[in-house]
């Protein structure tokens, strides 16, 4: 039941954000400071998702060579910077992670 409430709640949230100005409001009344703040949503949100995903190892920040996801993530960041390709980043990151997991036995 609570799962379904969450599913419907998230669906309604994304819809209302999309419909905000197209259906309901006048974009002229969109304050400038708000527009400026929205420009930082992508870098902030994505970094807040990525950092724990590569740096946390069993709940602790681990930047040693024991943290295979950190090493694979660094390679993927470099590949993303050079190629700008989602596919290349995924293939290189997974390739490095699988290789290291295999090499470490």
């Amino acid at each position, binding site marked *: 039941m609570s799962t379904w409430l969450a*599913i419907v709640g998230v669906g309604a949230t*994304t819809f209302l954000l999309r419909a905000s100005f197209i259906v309901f409001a006048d974009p002229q009344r969109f304050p400038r400071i708000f527009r400026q703040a929205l420009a930082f949503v992508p*870098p902030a949100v994505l970094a807040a998702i990525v950092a724990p995903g590569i740096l946390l190892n069993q709940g602790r920040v681990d930047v040693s060579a024991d943290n295979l996801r950190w090493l694979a*993530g660094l390679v993927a960041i470099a590949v993303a910077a050079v190629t700008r390709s989602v596919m290349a980043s995924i293939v290189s990151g997974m390739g490095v992670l699988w290789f290291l997991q295999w090499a470490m036995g």
Partner: protein
Amino acid sequence: MSATIDPTPREEFIAGSREVAPSLVGTIPFGLVVGVASVAAGLTPFEGVALSVLAFSGIAQLVATQLIAAQSPLLITVTAAFIVSLRLLMYSAALAPHLAHLTGRWRWLISYLMTDQSFAMTVRRYGEPGDRRHKHWFFMGASMTLFWTWQLAVVAGVLAGSGVPASWSLDFVVVLTFIALLVPVVKKRADFAAALVAATIALATAGFPYRLSLVVGSIAGIAVGLVLDRRHWRRSA
């Protein structure tokens, strides 16, 4: 205004589908991963697909999936989805003036279908000269192509999901996808500061329940980016 720059709805629809086709190379694996992740997090296949149809957003679906798995309270799940989807508000404001002449039903439908890709393409197209009466059909062509590709990829992922062993570490594909999205949006120094602060705060608060670290880190990053940006404007003004 001449006839050559007023294509029929059908021509606009086909042009939109064609324009979106190359980006489907990224849409398909991302949809697969989101489908796999939703089953791995404990959603039933039907719940995973329902979330996909209602939210139609990879990032919102992933975040919601993780929070539902962590048994988060409804308010926290919805708040997290709201924050990661705030960019849609920006898109809505940018497209609204181009759609003001359409009926309410059209505007509801276009709102539902709007995504990062369809927005980017439509804004570019609407910026071109010419008074095209059926340009919303261009949006429909791009969006419907994306919609069906995305939903089918999610269904495929959901069906494959329970058969994927944990030792394959497929959940890491999600992190890698976000890395690929993050790197190109860090352009200015203020973007870098926003990302760095968000990452640091998210790590420092990693022990908080219900993945609140995502919300706290994001807000801190946005705030720092905004402060630096305004200071920059004031100096150059």
